[in-house]
Structures are given as structure tokens and as C-alpha cells.
């Protein structure tokens, strides 16, 4: 095979491999992804046994800590529907009522269980002015 055809052949092989790998990547990303939903969306489409990423605000007054477990409710950013979550695992420092959180949940026997260590709290107001209730002095 002359060098030019060898090069073309190499190029075709390489590109095909790239396309195959990229497709595998893209396919698995869609199947491995957890959809990010607000509480109202979650209530509409929840299926038991599937995990979802729930994002919303922690409802003030709903936080209860018992030893290793943490119970709290998450509501829509705009207010309204709230979902109670039973969570175990690391609680990030910024977690508190009124803050935005992301937690992976699964509906098990009627109860929304938070996946262990999946709780993320958005770092509050670093580049934004804090809402009035949050004025802290350090």
C-alpha cells in the first residue's frame, strides 16, 4: 500500500474509533444522568426505585437533626409544594434553612430517602447581595 493510502486508512480508522467512543460516552451520559427537578416537577413524574436530583430551597422550620440522620423539607424556589426528605450522610457546612440545596433522592415505600452523602448546598451569596434575613456579621 503506498504511503498516501496508508495514511488515509489510518485516518479513517482513527476517526471511526473516535466516533464509536464518543457515541458510547454520549449514550451512557444520558442513561446515567439523574434529572434535576424541582419538588413540584418531582411529584408529577416520580417513579419508585429511580433516583432523581431534587433542587429547591430548604423550608424554614423543617430541619430536624437526630444523631446521624437529618430530616428536612425542600420546596420550590418560588415557594409552594414541599417534599420531606430523610437524609443520612455528610451535611455540608453552608446547609441551613432558606438555602438552596441539591440532593439525590429516591422514593422508597412512600418515603423520599436522600442518597447518602449526596447533599450539596449552594455556597450562598458570595457574589450576590444576601437576602435581608441572612445578614450575618462575622
Amino acid at each position, binding site marked *: 500500500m503506498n504511503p498516501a493510502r496508508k495514511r488515509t486508512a489510518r485516518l479513517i480508522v482513527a476517526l471511526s474509533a473516535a466516533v464509536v467512543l464518543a457515541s458510547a460516552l454520549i449514550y451512557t451520559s444520558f442513561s446515567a444522568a439523574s434529572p*434535576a427537578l424541582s419538588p413540584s416537577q418531582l411529584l408529577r413524574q416520580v417513579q419508585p426505585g429511580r433516583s432523581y436530583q431534587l433542587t429547591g430551597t430548604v423550608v424554614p422550620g423543617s430541619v430536624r437533626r437526630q444523631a446521624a440522620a437529618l430530616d428536612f423539607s425542600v420546596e420550590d424556589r418560588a415557594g409552594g409544594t414541599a417534599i420531606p426528605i430523610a437524609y443520612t450522610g455528610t451535611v*455540608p457546612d453552608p446547609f441551613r434553612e432558606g438555602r438552596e440545596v441539591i440532593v439525590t433522592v429516591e422514593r422508597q415505600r412512600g418515603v423520599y430517602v436522600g442518597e447518602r452523602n449526596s447533599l450539596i448546598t449552594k*455556597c450562598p451569596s458570595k457574589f*450576590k447581595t444576601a437576602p435581608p434575613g441572612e*445578614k*450575618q456579621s462575622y
Partner: protein
Amino acid sequence: MAGLGRACLLLALAVCVYGIGASLYGVRSGRSEFSGSGRRCVYALAGILTIAFAVLEVAFLGNDFAFNTVASTSSRTTPAFYRAAAVWSSQEGSLLLWAWLLSLWSSLALFLTRRRLRDVAAYATSVLLGLAGFFIALMIFYANPFATTRPAPVEGAGLDPLLRFPTMMIHPPMLYSGYTLCTIPLAFGIGALLARRVDADWIKAIRRFAFAAWLFLGVGILLGARWSYAELGWGGYWGWDAVENASLMPWLTGTAFLHSLMIQEKRGMLKVWNISLVLATGTLAIMGTFLVRSGILNSIHAFGGATLGVPFVVVIAALIGGSIYLVVSRRDMLRSEHRLDSLLSRESIFIANNVVLVALCFVIFWGTYFPLISDALTGHEASVGPPWFDRYTVPLALVLVLLSGIGPVITWRRATLANARRNFTVPVLAALVTLLALLAVGVPQKPFAIAMFCCAAFVLASIGQEFFRGVNARRAMAGEAAPVALLSLVRRNRRRYGGYIVHLGIAVLFVGVAASSSFQHASELGLSPGQSTRVGAYTVRYVRPTATITPKDDRAHTGSTLSLGAVLAVYKHGHHVATLQPSEGFYAAAGAQGSVGSLIGGQPVSHVSMDAGATRDIWSAIAPNIETPELKRIVSIGNRTLPAEDAIVAIGVLARTYLQHPPQAQFHLIVSPLVMWIWLGGLIVFGGGLIAIWPAPSAVRRRVAVRARTRDARGLARA
């Protein structure tokens, strides 16, 4: 003085606009005095922004709360050290830092190239001034660091306690230096395409800045990982968070560029690829800056007003569109001079290295922007987590490390099998011996980690072989003793041996990553004083509780009102190994929680305690229970009976009660092997990078040139 700051911003914008016009006019009309004027605009910009930055720093250090940013991120009780750093903890301040660093690095770049690349530099000047102008315009119209409120508030809100750690001072400036340095090759790349000059001179000028960008960005990323591990409370150093990924992507393409640049230098190949990498690196750096402050992706770091998103998207779209247009329209100029001779050659390995790095970048890009992609394609926003990232990046990282061991040992153009046999025997043996040793010792079955250890052994052996043979060659040529030979070998071949040291550091770093993620023992449980637990090979015992109250004992200047913690004793095989003192700080918060409640009702911050060693780290964090019925009763009684000025008395009672009747506390304990190797590897990479980038003293260059010329003459005579 805010007026001076505001004036500086306006003047800076005017200078940018004039500079763009002057540079472009100068280069299109051939009147180089205008290009020179444009270049001086960059110097002037650096001076103006230095003054503006100084005004802001003085405001912070002097507690001038008329400045809105000072009032929202600093306070009289914030220590001076953190007040100086608070400048870049806000949107406005960080934009100013970015623009200032850009102007400084651009000035340096244009000063160093002031005698060469005239037309390329003139176009580059316009691009850099355009970017600087963009950031300055953002400040003037959207987020002005010199906005004031009068009358000035008496006290400020203070620096977020999550940021009160020393690494906070260095991480953003290093990272921003990396980002801004990435835009310099971008500007020179656009300039080269516009001026139709992609050649040896351009390569020489751009290499150093691409290297510096790579170095600073890498250090910034490592510092961020170290901060996350040693000072934030979750015990990890990398979470595939959107913002972490945003800084890693330009670093990956930058690494690819540094390697493929060598191929262009030697064989005149890959010109289109290289220019695309340069443009991609700069664009990814701007995208990274955008990601952090736009709030478009959910992330631990996600902060930022939505107002900044649109201007950034416009700039990024312009960069991408413009880059594609330029490369396509100049493609005849970017044709390769040679072709790949053989698959078994250094060029081939470098190309493979590029492919792996770009593949890594693509995986990370896809995963990071997936919420937006899935939203656009399916209407539902979904995100992928660390397991998905790990699945693809781990094998790619393995291949990368392996390639970094093969590359140094293989020749350019065409390597023969006999050659390969001679050069690869020792490294392959080293890898096999490591594999057998690991299996014999009974290391738990973690195939990827074991594979990484073997690849690292391969790299160590091949680098070691290179140094050994190089020293021998030097001794044969110059008759020096071994240590002297080593020094002069490295001094005379900085790029090569500096690069080898970088590869060594990367291998060490990945050994640390593999060991600490695959062989970690973690435990989350509640303990009361006197109880102990096993973590891996260690026994951890909760000895006694601790409680400190500001301002008496706040040695770390955390500013917390009350700090509750524990003393932990760590034993291995019955011997006392370490003492740890994790704690959690409770801060004050203005609000309706009562006089006592508001002293400790703010966001709590965990203070990690760690014993770092060469073979393992023992990491501990505590979440003390401050809401037992007994403690809550003290708070509510204090709220009812004590006015705000006396409320601190109740805190003292709280502390004493906690010490006398400590409730069970939640502990997070981690034993990770070889974490230290990550930081060590990073230091080695940094050292190797410095060696590689260090300019050879001109005396050496001249000697070399003279010697080469005489050899040429002799060669001519021979021919």
C-alpha cells in the same frame, strides 16, 4: 478615593478603545508609530489598573465601609490578612483582579516581543485590549467595585468564614494568572492568523507564555484541591464540580499544545492542530471565568448575578466563531511540511498524547455542560455525577501516564525494533516487578490502582534510565564527576530534563490519586467521650471534648463566637500515633434568634484536623450536637433574661456545660494512603516546569552557537 477608582476605570476603558484603534490602524497602514502607541496603551493600562487595585486594597485595609464591596465582605473584626484577600471574594473585586492581572501579563508579553513580530504583536495588542476592555466595561456597567453608599455603614458584614483560610489568599490570584496567561497565546494566535505569519519566530515567542499559563493554572488547580481537602469539611480533593472542571479543561489543552508545538518546531507538521489548540485553550479559559460567575450550572461554587451571563456568551460566541473563520480562511498557509513517517516514533507518541488529552477534555466538557445539553436536547435538565466522570477519565489517565514514560525514550521520525528492545527492557521489567510485588504482598484487588502503580513504575524507570544514560554521556564527553555531570546535563538541556522531571512528578501525583481513592477507609459515626472506633488499621478514641470562646482563644482568627470540638487519640498496634483536634465554629448572625441565639446562630464552619504523613493521612471532622435539650434550655433562658451586651455570659455557660456533660458527637474519619504524594508530585511538576522554562543564560547560547558554527564549517569541509 472611590472617585479616583471610578475615574481609573473610565480612563482604562478609553485607553483600551484608543489602543485597539491605534494598533489596528498601525498594522493596516504600515505606520508603526501607531502600533507602538497601541503597545504603550497596554503598559498604561497596567499602570492605571494598578492604581485602581491599590485604591480598593487601601479601602479594605482601612475599613472604608462607604465602598459597597468592603461593607459586604469585610468588617473591623476581620483580621488584616483576610481583609487584604477579601478584595477578590466579591464579584466586583474579582473582576478587577482579573483585568489587572491581564494587563500585567499582557504588558510583559508585549515588552518581551517589542522587537519582533511587529504585525502579529499589533493584532495581539488589539485582542488583549479588547478582552481587558470587556472586563472593564462589565465593571463600569454591571458590577462596579467603586460603588459607594453614603452615609457609610459603621460596620461591615465580614468575610464569609468558609473563606477564612490561608490558601484563600493564593488560590484565586494563581488561578486568575493562569486564566489570563492563557489569553496571551490566544491573542498571539489570532494575530498570527490575521498577519498570515505562523512560523518559527511565533512559536518561540508563544511557547514561553503557553508554558507560564500551564504552570500557573496547574498550581492554581492544585491549590484549590489542597484547600478543599485540608480546610473544607468534606474530606476530598476533587469532586468533578463544574468550576473545578472549568479550570482543568484549558490546562489539558494547554498540555497538549506544549507537546504538539515540539512537533511543529521539528517537522513543520500539525500547524492547524496547534493553532486550534491555542485558540481552544484561550476560549476555554474565558468560558471557565464565565462559568464561575454566571450561575448557569449548579455547583458548590455557583455564584453570580444572571446579568453577567449574556455579555459573556456574546464574547465566547465571537471567539469561537472568529477562530473557526480564521483557521479555515488561512488553511493554505497552515499546510504541513512533512508527514508522519512511522507509527513507532516520538511524533506518533506525541500525537497519541494529544489525542488522549483532548479526549479527556471532551469527556469533562460533556459531563460539565451536560445539564445545559440535556436541557437543550430533551427539555429536561439532568446531570452526571462523579462515577460517570471516573469511568472515562481513569482509563484515559492510565494511558496518559504510560505514554509519558514511552515518549522520552523513543526517537523522532522512525524508531527501530532493536532500538525499542534496548530502551524499553528496563522500564518494562520495572513495571512487571512492581506488579508481582503488589500481588505478592496481597494488595486488595483494585485493578485500576494496580495498573496505575505499574505504569508509574514504568515511567520512573524510563526517566531514571534517561538521567543515568545522560550523565554517562556527559561524563564521556566532558570527563566530569557524576554530580557535576548531572548538574551541567540539566543546565544545558533544560527543556528536555525539565520536561522529564515534570513527567516524574505527574507519575508520583497519579500514584497518590490512585492510592488515596482506591484504598481509603472512611467512617461516619457518633462517639461519646471514652469510646473508640477502628478506621482501617488505626484505632481512634474520643478522649475529651473542647470548647473555646472568642476573643480569648481564637488563635486562628476564625472570628467564631464559640468553637466546640474534641481531642482524638489515634493508635496503631497499640502505639499512640497522633492526636487530632477537630472542631466546629459557631458564628454570630443578625436576626430574630434572641440575644444569645444570634451569637451562635450563624453558618457553622468545620475545622478539620489532620495528621499528614508520607504513607497516609488521618483526617477528622466533627459535627458536635449543640441542640441537646440541656443546651437549648440554656439558650432560651439566656434569650429571655439577658440583653445583647451580656449575652456572651450564656455562651460561657454553654461551653462549660458542654465540657461537663458532652453529648454524643458525629465524627467523620478518613484514613487515606499516599495523599502526600499528590502534593509532592505537584511540587515536582512545578520544579520541573520552572527548570524547563528558565531561559538559558545568553553566554551559554553564544558558546553553543559558536561551537555549532565551527562544527558546521568542519561539516562543510567534510561534505
